[in-house]
């Protein structure tokens, strides 16, 4: 029942970044295995959305201007050199999908590469990966990393939740973590499998994180729906229960006024301002956005309907695994991070990279890490016969004996995390004392997870237990960093510390399992390029 494989490169996560990483590694000549918790092609937040990529033609002046504009909004934490790199790599890489995605041909006969529909995009990437020789393991969540005695990564281990079941072990020279952001089990569209597993696995192996305080992005949706697609809401007007219009200040970012209104009572919206010609083609632009309305008999263009805001955690925030070189290597030799699992401060700073940067980042960081892992494999070999150690802890190997009712503890942990990480008043209107209280609560949850959380009787229970441990870990790094950043910068807002503090114009690293730590990451800007010492 157990599956043992050897490969040059293992990709953990088969969303946008993982697929591009797998394709890049395979095209560089590596033998590649990709394992996804769900199904590569429908999993991850791109498969349910429709990303627009950062798309700037190779005109030096246009590109320099694009970087300058974006850098000016990043509040000092981005790196223009990385922005220029992703613009270039995205421009060169996206068109290579043309055999698998039917690009719309727009004015002048030019294929439109920049913006793709999610389900079709991921279906195409799966086909591209398969055609490139990638071996895909669906419904095969990774649970922990394997390490060599010298601390470098040796592979990973997980389970198969369909078919014959059982465990899988993949030994590989290089491993790419592409497990997405951590959405703290909010109802953000497509995010159920994004529980921060990769963050925890990497941290257990010795990786550090960066920017975890930037985990506050929110998106509006119809009250009980998951459709967090903001384009149509560009035409929205919002009202309170008494029918008074909510002043959103003419700002396209409506999060704060809506959150304040939602804390006071129900909020309603209408899309009445959307012009008739766009209404008519909306199902062809975003076929899913209208489903919740049609299925409830709501006409969103003439009626008012209740709305909510879904928190996104680090998905359209910027925090994630810290990278040490241009190959997207983490602190752990041979372990790379791509897409939302990695910090996106390099390209978005303290603000969200949603809307264009994040998907360009997923394409580029995926491509670079896949290529680098393939180079590592040919330089060092697989070392598949050396002894290795499994790095996993909480949720796999309870230190104080397992509690009998693993399911009840898992629920207690996930509900505990949701209670600290989703309420608007705790996340969007942060205050020092409340953050300190949250952190104390989360530290207690961590001790429960570490000491008593056992894997549970079946595949579903084992995955859920490990997810619960990862959620608690990510919540702690995020909360501790938010507490340490005693200022308001971009996505991170402190009610008790409004305004920028020039002394905090640097990135904040975090990490640690039993004891969480936060420290400054030196000057953020224009760090000299450092390449890993692999040919």
């Amino acid at each position: 029942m157990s599956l043992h494989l050897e490969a040059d490169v293992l990709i953990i996560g088969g969303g946008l970044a993982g697929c591009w990483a797998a394709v890049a590694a395979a095209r560089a000549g590596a033998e590649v295995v990709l394992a996804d918790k769900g199904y590569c092609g429908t999993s991850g937040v791109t498969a349910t959305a429709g990303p627009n990529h950062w798309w700037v033609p190779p005109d030096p002046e246009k590109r320099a201007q694009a970087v300058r504009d974006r850098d000016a909004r990043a509040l000092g934490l981005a790196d223009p050199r990385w922005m220029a790199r992703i613009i270039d790599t995205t421009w060169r890489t996206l068109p290579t999908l043309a055999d698998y995605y039917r690009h719309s041909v727009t004015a002048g006969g030019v294929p439109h590469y920049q913006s793709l529909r999610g389900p079709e995009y991921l279906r195409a990437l799966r086909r591209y990966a398969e055609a490139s020789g990638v071996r895909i393991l669906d419904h095969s969540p990774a649970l922990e990393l394997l390490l060599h005695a010298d601390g470098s990564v040796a592979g990973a281990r997980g389970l198969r939740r369909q078919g014959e079941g059982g465990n899988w072990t993949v030994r590989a020279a290089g491993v790419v973590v592409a497990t997405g952001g951590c959405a703290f089990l909010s109802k953000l569209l497509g995010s159920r499998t994004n529980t921060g597993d990769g963050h925890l696995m990497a941290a257990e192996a010795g990786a550090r994180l960066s920017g975890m305080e930037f985990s506050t992005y929110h998106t509006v949706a119809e009250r009980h729906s998951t459709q967090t697609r903001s384009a149509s809401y560009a035409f929205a007007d919002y009202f309170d229960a008494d029918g008074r219009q909510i002043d959103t200040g003419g700002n396209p970012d409506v999060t704060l006024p809506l959150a304040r209104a939602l804390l006071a009572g129900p909020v309603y919206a209408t899309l009445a301002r959307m012009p008739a010609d766009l209404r008519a083609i909306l199902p062809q632009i975003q076929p899913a956005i209208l489903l919740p309305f049609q299925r409830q008999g709501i006409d969103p263009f003439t009626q008012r309907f209740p709305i909510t805001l879904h928190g996104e955690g680090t998905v359209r925030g910027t925090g994630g695994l810290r990278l040490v070189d241009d190959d997207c290597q983490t602190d752990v030799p041979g372990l790379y991070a791509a897409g939302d699992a990695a910090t996106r401060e390099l390209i978005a700073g303290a603000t969200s990279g949603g809307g264009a940067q994040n998907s360009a980042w997923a394409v580029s960081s995926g491509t670079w890490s896949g290529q680098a892992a393939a180079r590592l494999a040919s330089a060092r070999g697989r070392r598949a016969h050396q002894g290795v150690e499994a790095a996993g802890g909480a949720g796999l190997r309870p230190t104080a004996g397992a509690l009998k009712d693993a399911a009840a503890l898992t629920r207690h942990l996930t509900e505990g995390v949701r209670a600290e990480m989703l309420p608007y008043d705790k996340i969007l209107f942060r205050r020092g004392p409340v953050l300190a209280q949250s952190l104390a609560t989360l530290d207690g949850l961590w001790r429960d997870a570490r000491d008593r959380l056992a894997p549970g009787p079946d595949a579903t229970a084992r995955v859920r237990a490990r997810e619960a441990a990862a959620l608690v870990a990510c919540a702690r790094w995020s909360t501790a960093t938010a507490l340490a950043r005693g200022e308001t910068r971009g996505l991170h807002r402190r009610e008790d510390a409004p305004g920028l503090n020039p002394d905090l114009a640097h990135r904040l690293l975090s990490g640690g399992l039993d004891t969480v730590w936060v420290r400054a990451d030196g000057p953020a800007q224009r760090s000299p390029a450092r390449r890993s010492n692999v040919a």
Partner: protein
Amino acid sequence: MIELVVDDRCTRCDTCVQVCPTNVFERGTDGLPLIARQEDCQTCFLCELYCQADALYVAPNCDEPVAVDAASIMASGLLGQFRRDSGWNEWEGDPAHANLHWRMGELFARARAG
């Protein structure tokens, strides 16, 4: 959340079991998919998109299960709507369902212009 498998439409092809990203379904002994883990459903509608028999119905409520009436849903014309609007399978190439996703930027731009 997923609420309905229409048994007499289902061809027992197993596709939904395979493609559901959160592993909600399980193949039953009669070959029909069972909704085994509804609480894991992320209301993404992608099982509907992949079901060529239009045998699945996902209710838009992601917070709690809702009672649905199979007969009225079959009469509603909602089954298969997402697949058709997306221009998948037999709808591919039909200009009425051409993929206009590339015009998304226009929504933002025209809203800004007022």
